[in-house]
């Protein structure tokens, strides 16, 4: 056992590549747990951030600053009555949330949280991700149809049209990023998620800045399409609360509903991971060019630990500022315990061996977290698009622009060869 651990820690490839079924399973379990936890954290953060943008407090009662609210919500959902409408197609109705969930979670197999921190590295990684994440729409359609009710049906129809049409622009944006992997001085084009990040490391540029502004344009297109793909504001038509009550989820309740909910947030994390991997350098630390050198490397590797310590300090400050009355005793102790946990994680992250390996995960997560913040921000700011306007944006704006970006990227990429072919001069 110990041998296996040391052998694994010494290796420089993902468990999938190394052919270690055992470690791959461990990784999958870890990722599933991590993503579920992240979803719990996100529900809390979303409510808090949204609340603060809307001049209110958000959850404050369950735990210090409502930290335990997600757990309370989960418990509530689990204990709710599980209703299946009378006229519903029972098998499909039960199956739909499972499909959505599985599609959302499966994509995480190939997400590279670090050079070695992925379940496996597929040579068709990005294709796999795109393919599996599109399966989610199947669950949405069947769920809406199986409910045998008008609002879910309309919600699922909207959702189907929306997801399919935005996938086109999304795919084209991804292709132009994949194309960029072949434009460096070293290496060739690759569809592997790890390969794509490696290409950005080798070319010393994140693809969002590559061939400026082409990379940026592709990134923006993807960033818009991914919001539509995950049915979030301002493209949240399938579950438009004010029109369709709850869209395709109207007839669902209890745990089945929470599966849809979980899948939505997981899908948000998944598409953000794609965006981070393709354009924002995946696990690479920021400013590798300006702030290079071993001293800077060392400084940046300290950031994760210090950040956790800072959060812990904030918690302890909160403990000090808690009202000193018996009613707040449990809250104060809870906050202190949470701070202690954060401090412990921070200290572990400062240990030399862990530091180097864990910082990859930290940078990746931090970039994904930025996208999650944007998701919440959009939700607080924008009204909702109408169905026809949504389609117009998808087909008349995003699709032509992404096609144009792809073509221009290709032409710029082969400009020397093209020039040689035109003038007849070979290099």
């Amino acid at each position, binding site marked *: 056992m110990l041998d296996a651990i040391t052998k694994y820690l010494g290796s420089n490839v993902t468990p999938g590549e190394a052919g270690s079924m055992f470690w791959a399973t461990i990784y999958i379990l870890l990722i599933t747990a991590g993503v579920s936890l992240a979803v719990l954290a996100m529900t809390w953060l979303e409510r808090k951030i949204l609340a603060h943008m*809307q001049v209110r407090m958000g959850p404050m009662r369950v735990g210090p600053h409502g930290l335990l609210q997600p757990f309370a919500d989960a418990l509530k959902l689990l204990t709710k009555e599980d209703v299946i409408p009378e006229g519903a197609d029972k098998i499909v109705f039960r199956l739909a949330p499972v499909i959505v969930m599985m599609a959302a979670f499966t994509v995480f197999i190939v997400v590279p949280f670090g050079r070695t921190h992925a379940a496996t590295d597929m040579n068709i990684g990005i294709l796999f991700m795109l393919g599996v994440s599109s399966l989610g729409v199947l669950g949405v359609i069947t769920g809406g149809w199986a409910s045998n009710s008008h609002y879910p049906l309309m919600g699922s129809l909207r959702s189907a049209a929306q997801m399919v049409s935005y996938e086109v622009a999304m795919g084209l944006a991804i292709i132009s990023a994949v194309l960029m992997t072949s434009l460096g001085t070293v290496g060739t084009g690759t569809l592997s998620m790890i390969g794509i990040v490696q290409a950005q490391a080798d070319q010393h540029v994140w693809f969002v800045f590559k061939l400026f502004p082409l990379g940026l344009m592709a990134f923006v297109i993807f960033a818009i399409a991914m919001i539509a793909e995950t049915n979030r504001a301002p493209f949240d038509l399938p579950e438009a609360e004010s029109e369709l009550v709850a869209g395709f989820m109207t007839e669902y309740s209890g745990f089945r509903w929470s599966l849809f909910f979980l899948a939505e947030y997981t899908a948000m994390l998944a598409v953000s991971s794609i965006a981070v991997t393709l354009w924002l350098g995946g696990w690479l630390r920021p400013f590798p060019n300006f702030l290079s050198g071993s001293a800077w490397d060392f400084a940046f590797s300290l950031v994760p630990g210090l950040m956790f310590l800072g959060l812990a300090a904030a918690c302890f400050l909160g403990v000090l500022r808690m009202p000193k009355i018996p009613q707040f005793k449990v809250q104060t102790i809870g906050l202190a315990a949470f701070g202690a946990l954060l401090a412990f994680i921070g200290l572990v992250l400062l240990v030399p061996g862990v530091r180097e390996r864990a910082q990859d995960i930290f940078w990746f997560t931090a970039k994904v977290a930025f996208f999650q913040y944007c998701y919440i921000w959009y939700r607080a700011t924008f009204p909702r698009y109408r169905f026809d306007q949504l389609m117009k944006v998808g087909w008349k704006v995003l699709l032509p622009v992404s096609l144009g970006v792809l073509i221009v990227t290709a032409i710029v990429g082969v400009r020397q060869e093209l020039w040689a072919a035109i003038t007849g001069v070979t290099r």
Partner: protein
Amino acid sequence: MSDGKFNRPDLLDLDTKEETFLDTTEMVLNMGPQHPSTHGVLRVILKLDGEKVLGTECIIGYLHRGVEKIAENRTYAMFNPYVDRMDYVAAVSNGLGYCEAVEKLLAVEAPPRAQYIRVLMTELCRIASHQVWLGTHALDIGALTPVFYAFRDREEILKIFEKYCGARLTTHAFRIGGCIYETYEGFEQDVKVFCEKFLPKLDEYEELLTTNRIWVGRTKGVGILAAEDCIALGVTGPVLRASGVEWDLRKKQPYEAYSKFQFDIPTGLNGDTYDRYLVRIQEMRQSVRILQQAIEDIPSGPIMAKVPKVIKPALGEVYHSIEAPKGELGYYIVSDGSTQPYRVRVRPPSFVNLQALDKMVHGMLVADVVAVIGTLDIVLGEVDR
């Protein structure tokens, strides 16, 4: 799924089905009475071709409390608090309309100071009502934040109401013949501070919406109502003004002290949802203008006219209407010479404006129905009474 299980399957007798390349079945969608954005208990039956609305039918009465019938069994003064329960978002305006109608019947006039207090309170109420409209309308279109901003600022108005008459929502602020309460100490200061603070807040709302591309896209050209249609349907208030008709009872048939104030009647050009939004926003600015003038020149003196203890109007009838936040609010009162009205008929703006819904959403999408219900600014308590 479209046929059958309705209790009235032949409800929508529409011949508007268009010839399409693919023959699709029409769907009948029941929206409400429990629905997040029908502003209460409105039930709308939509006949849909995909997302397109072929026709609508409004079913009302889920909040019917028989207010008009109650009036026949109460004395004039006793009925006064009931009117607050009609348009509960703008209770002060309801009370003003009723009190004035009875005053007209009795041929008395409120003293100048009472008139000014009435103007101040109703204009505050107009702002509060428009804030509720703004918040819910934006929420219907998917903008989550304005509703919280609007309610935060509405709170200041409700605080003034509470200090003045002890109630926040159903105020019962006025009495027949004037006001029963003198303004509290610091009232003028409160109103002045509110006016000062509210204008930047209004800019804040506009910042979120007026130039927002999605907002403009969702509201421009949606639910267009031409001026002649408005007049034919009897639509009044901001909806009428947004269609370009300069009709405001505060100017055209001045009541209370309104003839003494300088203010404009904001009008729109296209009569679409965006224009109605702009008109209401401008109206809030005009209300602030009126408030500022009124608080400067408020005269001193009595606040109650000489009204007999037992109100017993002579045989006769009267119709009096005021410009409520939602449109023309009229009271038709018939007196048989006793202490109780023989008949009270209310002309509620929401009820009349709701008639325009079908015309406005014809051929639009489902999402527009929600936007149009929001822009009509209906309160079901007033529609059903």
